[in-house]
Structures are given as structure tokens and as C-alpha cells.
């Protein structure tokens, strides 16, 4: 339910800002933040990423499968990095850093493969990362408020 909400929010943001802008990948961030808790099955989240990416492709990129692969691959790398960190070192700040890095990687990959890299593209990419900052901070605060240990896949 929450994932659908974040997909819808990302879609509304894209409609609001029009196609030329790169909106923050809210759906991806929601998947990642939910993935590091003990509450959700990782396999379910991976297939949710696949379906959400597919729907995004059908709505915006016109290349069904592209965003699915992008989300699943980067999510897997993110979870892999997370699982490599010792349990004692797993803090909300580390989650935010990994999520930010994955978000940056997703945006950059999308731009490099789908868009024409031009002068303004870098600026738009930076803007996308800056727009994602409040959501990253909010996600970190959400994790800090949660009880219990984070997931060790």
C-alpha cells in the first residue's frame, strides 16, 4: 500500500514538473528503506520493484523493462552492500548514505542510457539529487523511530 502511494507520488511529481525534469525516485527509496527493516520480505520487495518499474516504463520511458531492471539491479547492489556491513555498524545514517548513493546511481544510469547528455543534464541530475534529500532525511528519521534491529539479509 505504501509502495503504491510512493509510486503515485513520484508519478504526480513527474506530471507536475513535466518530462524534462528528473524527479526523485521516491518509489525506489521507499523500497530500500522498507528493505532494511525486518518487516518485509526481500523477494517481495524485489518483485514490487520490478512491477513498479514496469509501470513507470509504460507511463514515461516507453521502454518496458528498462526501469524494472534498473530498480532491481541497484536495489540488489544496495542490499548487498547493506548485508556486508557488520550488524553493530548498521545505523540509520548508513542507510541514508547507501540509499543516497543508490539513488544517485539510478538517476545517472537513467540519464546516460535514455537521455542526451547535454549542458543542462548535469544540472537537472544535481537538482534531482537535491530534491531527494528531504525524502532521504525523512526516511532516516523514520528508521530511527522504529524499534528493533535492522535486517541482515
Amino acid at each position: 500500500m505504501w509502495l503504491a502511494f510512493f509510486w503515485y507520488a513520484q508519478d504526480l511529481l513527474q506530471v507536475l514538473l513535466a518530462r524534462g525534469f528528473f524527479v526523485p525516485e521516491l518509489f525506489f527509496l521507499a523500497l530500500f528503506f522498507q528493505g532494511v527493516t525486518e518487516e518485509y520480505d526481500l523477494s517481495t520487495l524485489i518483485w514490487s520493484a520490478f512491477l513498479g518499474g514496469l509501470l513507470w516504463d509504460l507511463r514515461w520511458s516507453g521502454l518496458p523493462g528498462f526501469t524494472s531492471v534498473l530498480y532491481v539491479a541497484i536495489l540488489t547492489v544496495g542490499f548487498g552492500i547493506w548485508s556486508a556491513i557488520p550488524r553493530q555498524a548498521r545505523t540509520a545514517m548508513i542507510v541514508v548514505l547507501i540509499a543516497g548513493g543508490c539513488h544517485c546511481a539510478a538517476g545517472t544510469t537513467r540519464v546516460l542510457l535514455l537521455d542526451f547528455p547535454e549542458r543542462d543534464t548535469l544540472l537537472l541530475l544535481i537538482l534531482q539529487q537535491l530534491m531527494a534529500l528531504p525524502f532521504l532525511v525523512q526516511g532516516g528519521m523514520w528508521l530511527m523511530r522504529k524499534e528493533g534491529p535492522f535486517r541482515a539479509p
Partner: protein
Amino acid sequence: MMRWEGIQSPWAHSLIACIAGLVLLGCSLQFAGTRDAVNTVTVVLAVPEYPAKALREGAVAIYRWNAERTDYMRHIEKLEQENLALRRALTEQRPNVEPLARPHLVTAMVDLRYPHQWWQRLRVDAGTRQGVGIGDPVLNKGKLVGRVVDVGRSFAWVELLTSSGLSIPVVVEETRDLGVVQGDNRGGVVLRFIPPDRELEEGMHLSTALVGEVFPPGIPVGAVREPGVETAGLRPYGVAAESTFSRLYAVQVLVKRGDRP
């Protein structure tokens, strides 16, 4: 819950999902129904996306209104003086003539542009609901960029000026020579059907000609560039288009007010 018997590891699920995505991507590039699927999703999502679209259009309208108002205020004094002079010049009462149907512009955002058809076509988020019809000219900052070739309720496909599938009659404003501009599918535009004895100079302006039924005359298209090699008794010229086709985000569709629902 998508947990298959025997496949418990999320990493295995990731691998399967990636492979499925890549297969889907490969198939979608070949499958003609992809475009229909994309259009269907767009139509279905048009309803839940309406609030954001309305908000965006409202913000754009307010910004535009402010900008236009500044310009209008600047010219009001001059126009009032001209109006006064014209009123004095009118000595006879004019017959009551019905004003001609005036075209108006519908602003639309580009919401889909396939990389492999980059210079041929794109899709905008305005359709028959906004009065857009097949054949309507599409402008960017007042310059011609293409023509509507397919239209749905909330979207329209635009054939770009850079597409070889679109031929538009134009007139060279300085010499009144008629020709046809056509794209080359690689981002370039060519002016065709100019007799070799007509010497056009670089920088001469091109605008749509009063030939055919669709395009109103006088829409700026571009400027003449260097001549090409003469073939079959005709000399092509390169055209410097007025718009930047690689960065088209917002366009205006010139629709005829009142002639469509």
C-alpha cells in the same frame, strides 16, 4: 508474497527479475503493441494524474499571465494613441462583419519521446479534450516544430519537422519563392524544389506558405543555409530550424477555436 518453492534467496529472485526485465525490454523493442500498451497506461493514469496536471497548468498560466501583463502595460499607451488616431480617421460606419474564427494555442508538455524515433515523433499530453486534431501545427516559442499525426483523448503524437515523413510547403520571405521543407531523420531539415536559377542567400527567412488546407501561412520555420548539390534540375538548401529539437519540453498546438468539441 512471491516466494517460489525451492527459490528462497532474494538474490536468486533479483537475478530472475533482471533477466525477465531484459527479455521484456528486448521484446518490447520489436513488438508493435508496445505503443498501444503505453498509450493505454497513459489514458488510464490520466484520471489520477489530473490534480498535478491542473496544478501545473495553473502555475504556468499565472506565470504567463504575469509576463504578458508586463508587456501589455508597456504597449498600452502607444496603442491608445494609435486607437485615438484611427477613430478620428473613421468617418463612415463599418458594416457589421462576423469576425473570422481565430486559432488559439494549446500548451502541451512532451511526455514521451522514443530514443530510436528521436527526430521523427514525440507525444504530448493534450488531445481531443483540449481541441487538438490531426493536422494541427505544433509550435515551440512561436516557431513551427511539427504537426499532429495521431490524437487520443488526452494525448497526441507529433511528427517533427526533422522527420522525413513530413513535408511542409514554405515560402522564402525575401524572394517569395515556394519550396518544401523536409527532415532527414537525423536532426537536419532540407529545403527542396528550388530551381537552380533562383539564388537564395544564407539567412533568408522561411515561413509556411498559403498552399494546402492545414497550415496557416506565415508561421516561422527557419532560415536558409548553404545550397546543396543540384539534382534533377532542382537545388536543395540546408535549413537552420528556429527551434532546438533536442530540447523540446513544452510545445503549443495551434487549434482552431470552436471548430471541434
